[in-house]
């Protein structure tokens, strides 16, 4: 059987989650490998969520937030940007493939951007193959 | 023309696949055709070309050669359509079917057989230099890319020599290409021969790679734009006028000669201006020449007129009254200028032709900015400056 990556999405309620809804409303097609967790703001995302997701067997993790400057909570994503950048560096230095973790700013009006990012990211993860480093074997 | 037509969507599809994807975006507002310098003087209508392409209509081949890829329409298009890509794609699709006009066949044939558009002997590419100038070797700062037109066209070899002298005078570390290169292929790509273009490009890229070239100077804006837009390689490319402006400002080049009130106007080559966004450097140079009165034509910079030489236009015959270079010379003379300066060998060729056919040799001279700089430095190149015959 061909490799079907499991991708965890964590999306902020106001922009990216709404953008993902818009992708649906406009019937854009994208791969079904992504499963999205809704949080209120990208700043809610605890770095440990991401480490944990990889331990749970995620092959890729995609974070979506409002564009900097457009955060529903004014500055949440500006903190998130720094915190997630550090998370990415930590993953990278631990030996995790950098391509497995991605942060994108996708606004509520960017349904096609959401679909495009998911397509691209899924393809990228497919190329990287299964994530085995963090995954806890059952 | 027949009264009924059937949309031939396979053709439309083929155009999109050949790089004319932007067809889909056009909403036919007519900004392109209202802006296009050809619309007022010929039957060529760029909007219609796109429309025919959208529906794959018959008859497209009758007017697809009209565009000189001056990019004016692209700059203005409210839908952001890369119209030149569409033109290129249409030509690619239809000329593949044998629709290449006679006048362009020699051009394509020469490029295919000899790697230059002027039927020049590839072994004699560097003859203009008379072995006076260095060939590029790894470690040098710049590769001075000599356009085929300045290598072979007698009028334009002056340009190559002037450039070489200026580079020496400014103390640059440079060399010209060996014989292992061929035409950059810019015009050929616009004429639609994508396959041959890739061949030419690959050969040049091989040479750049083998020699470790990292910075290129061009005299022709067409080579400049091609390296920049089409080559997608990791070297820097700069037009000589940008360097000359910088060197004059830094005092590395000091214009001495007093031109004694010479009135000069400047024609923006489309590929230097709208394609590469270089507007100021040539003007800065002209303004720095002692005793030169610089005047602008009404249409300048972003709004500059096209000479008609791009997109294969240099190799296509146009009837009298349908030549943009004629109109441009008239506009230049209208400013009171006695010198029409430009910075492109294609423009030079087009204007020299028009000057002769308009019979205005006495009233106006056509000069490249590079030549004027050399003159101002009071250096002469060892041959008489005079009009050469067009090839």
């Amino acid at each position, binding site marked *: 059987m061909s490799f079907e990556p499991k991708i965890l999405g964590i999306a902020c309620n106001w922009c990216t989650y709404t953008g993902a809804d818009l992708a649906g409303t406009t019937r854009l097609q994208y791969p079904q490998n992504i499963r999205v967790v809704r949080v209120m703001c990208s700043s809610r995302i605890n770095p*440990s969520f991401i480490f944990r997701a990889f331990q749970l067997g995620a092959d890729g993790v995609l974070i979506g937030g409002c564009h900097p400057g457009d955060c529903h909570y004014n500055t949440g994503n500006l*903190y998130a940007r720094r*915190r997630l*950048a550090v998370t990415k*560096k*930590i993953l990278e230095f*631990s030996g*995790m493939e950098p391509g497995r973790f991605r942060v994108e700013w996708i606004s509520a009006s960017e349904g096609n951007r959401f679909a495009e990012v998911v397509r691209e990211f899924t393809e990228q993860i497919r190329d990287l193959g299964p994530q085995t480093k963090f995954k806890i074997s059952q | 023309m027949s009264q009924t037509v059937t949309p031939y969507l396979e053709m439309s599809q083929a155009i999109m696949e050949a790089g004319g994807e932007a067809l889909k975006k056009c909403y036919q507002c007519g900004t392109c055709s209202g802006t296009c310098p050809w619309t007022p003087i010929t039957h060529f209508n760029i909007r219609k070309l796109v429309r025919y392409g959208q529906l794959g209509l018959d008859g497209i081949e009758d007017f697809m050669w009209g565009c000189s890829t001056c990019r004016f329409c692209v700059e203005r298009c409210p839908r952001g359509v890369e119209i030149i890509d569409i033109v290129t794609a249409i030509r690619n699709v239809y000329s593949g079917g044998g629709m290449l006009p006679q006048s362009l066949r020699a051009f394509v044939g020469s490029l295919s057989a000899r790697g230059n558009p002027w039927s020049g002997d590839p072994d004699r590419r560097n003859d203009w230099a008379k072995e006076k100038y260095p060939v590029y070797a790894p470690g040098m700062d710049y590769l001075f890319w000599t356009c085929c037109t300045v290598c072979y066209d007698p009028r334009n070899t002056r340009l190559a020599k002037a450039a070489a002298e200026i580079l020496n005078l400014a103390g640059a570390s440079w060399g010209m290409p060996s014989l292992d290169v061929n035409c950059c292929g810019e015009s050929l790509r616009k004429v639609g021969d994508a396959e041959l273009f890739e061949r030419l490009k690959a050969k040049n890229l091989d040479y750049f790679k083998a020699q470790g070239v990292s910075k290129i100077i061009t005299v022709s804006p067409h080579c400049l734009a091609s390296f920049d837009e089409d080559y997608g390689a990791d070297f820097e490319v700069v037009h000589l006028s940008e360097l000359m402006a910088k060197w004059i400002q830094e005092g590395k080049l000091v214009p001495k000669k007093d031109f004694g009130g010479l009135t000069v106007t400047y024609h923006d080559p489309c590929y230097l201006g709208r394609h590469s966004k270089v507007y100021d450097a040539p003007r800065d140079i002209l303004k720095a020449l002692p005793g030169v009165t610089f005047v602008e034509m009404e249409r300048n910079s972003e709004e500059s007129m096209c000479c008609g030489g791009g997109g294969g236009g240099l190799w296509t015959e146009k009837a009298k009254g349908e030549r943009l270079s004629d109109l441009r010379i008239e506009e230049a003379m209208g400013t009171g200028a006695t010198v029409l300066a430009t910075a492109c060998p294609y423009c030079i060729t087009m204007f020299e032709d028009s000057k002769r056919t308009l019979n205005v040799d006495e009233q106006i001279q056509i000069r490249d900015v590079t030549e004027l700089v050399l003159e101002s430095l009071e250096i002469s190149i060892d041959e008489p400056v005079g009009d050469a015959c067009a090839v």
Partner: protein
Amino acid sequence: MAISFEQIEQHLKTEALKLLESGKVILVLAYGRGYDANHPMPYVAKHPSDVDNIVFNEYCTANLARYLTRYPRRTKIAIAVKAADSRAVVQLIQEDKVCREDLVVLGIPVYGMKNFKTGEVIDSKTTGGLYNPVLYDILLGEEVHGQPVSSPYDVLAAYEAMDKEERWAFWQRELGRCIRCYACRKACPMCYCDPCFIDQNKPKWGEKSPESPGNLMYHLTRFHHLAGRCIDCGECSRACPVDIPLYLFHKKVAKDCEEMFGQAAGMSIGDKPVLVNFRVDDSDKILE
């Protein structure tokens, strides 16, 4: 050395005595004798008579800033700090854990400090060119100058050069050895949470037993918690009974933070810790 270890010890005693006698502070955080001279221990002098027990030698590597947060806020404390230790004090002030006005900082300019386990000189590994405290009220001796100055991040080069598989194997091996004794967080001046996230049951972030997955969760999260706060004293690694080079990872994160946010931890009391701060013009490039 401009000044000997004995002289520093003498200065330390003199100042400690003055401070305790004047009542300016109620305790002095310094070093005392351990089971032998090569194993000095942190020591708290609370009474003028305690001052005699204070020692200072090349093995006094412990970062005493670790103890500042154990006392109630507003306790008047004098603390002996070497270069890196002073950065910890600065960082704690930035984080409002201690108040500048409650502290008397006794700065020790020093080089030639040694790892008590291996005897190796650790200057280049930890202080990396920083020999003088960045913050002090009283300097015990003269500033050190003329010692070799290297980037604190030089030691990273070999690890940065590894490919990701090698690096994964390296950390898998190193972190896999962790016995979860938590000496690292006990020794760390910036680890003052009680309970630590890993001790929580709700949420349960990771296994508490010493096995790879739980170890990974504990250490990676701790690296994140210390991002932009770690002041590179190296105590975590020296405290580690199984010698895991945790300092390497902390240094890497510190280097990344400094590159991305233009600020190193514990250098100025006016700074705000980088991860509870932002600039509107932070580049999105940091996420690439």
